[in-house]
């Protein structure tokens, strides 16, 4: 199993550009999450999804959008990149809420907005 796969690993964007961060998992997990990690700040939840067709906002959703058309994929969209969105982005997945299984993380996308 590949687990959680994120692409790209690194990206530099100019202010105002847009891009999509890809995330896919092959564990048939219902729940998927997007976090951003800033130095000394831990992980902040951007959006999450409890199943295909269902998404909800986390702590810091402004400037981002998501979709969940399949169980496997959970892309994160930045429409108008801003310097404040420079961060490391992690996608994670977990099984359903009843089992309390831990989250599985991808290796991250390092994004710089210049």
């Amino acid at each position: 199993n590949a687990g959680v796969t994120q692409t790209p690993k690194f990206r530099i964007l100019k202010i105002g550009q847009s891009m999509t961060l890809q995330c896919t998992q092959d564990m048939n997990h219902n729940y998927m999450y997007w976090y951003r990690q800033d130095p000394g700040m831990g992980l902040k939840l951007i959006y999450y999804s409890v199943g295909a067709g269902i998404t909800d906002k986390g702590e810091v959703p402004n400037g981002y959008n998501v979709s969940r058309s399949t169980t496997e994929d959970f892309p994160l969209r930045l429409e108008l990149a801003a310097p404040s969105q420079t961060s490391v982005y992690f996608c994670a997945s977990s099984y359903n809420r009843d089992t309390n299984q831990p989250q599985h993380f991808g290796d991250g996308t390092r994004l710089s907005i210049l």
Partner: protein
Amino acid sequence: AQSVAQPEDQVNVAEGNPLTVKCTYSVSGNPYLFWYVQYPNRGLQFLLKYITGDNLVKGSYGFEAEFNKSQTSFHLKKPSALVSDSALYFCAVRDGGVDFNKFYFGSGTKLNVKP
């Protein structure tokens, strides 16, 4: 509100000595607690969890954690540290009451184990 606090940005310990990384939490319902480790340029990896039962839980790589309900703490411990344990450690909580779908993470503690 749900929250997790890791009061130490960094913990330094000599190889072979015991280590403790502290974590306290605040939730409205029953807490489901997790520890993760992060190595450079990698995602977080699960170490151990507390859901219910014994207050002392054992996890990967010789780590264990002690749940203390009265102190709302879930400290990570290891009897004898290794240089290879040097990494960033995150405590996380899932609220059994409200916002069950979400995990809340602490700010992380950098563990430095010196030979």
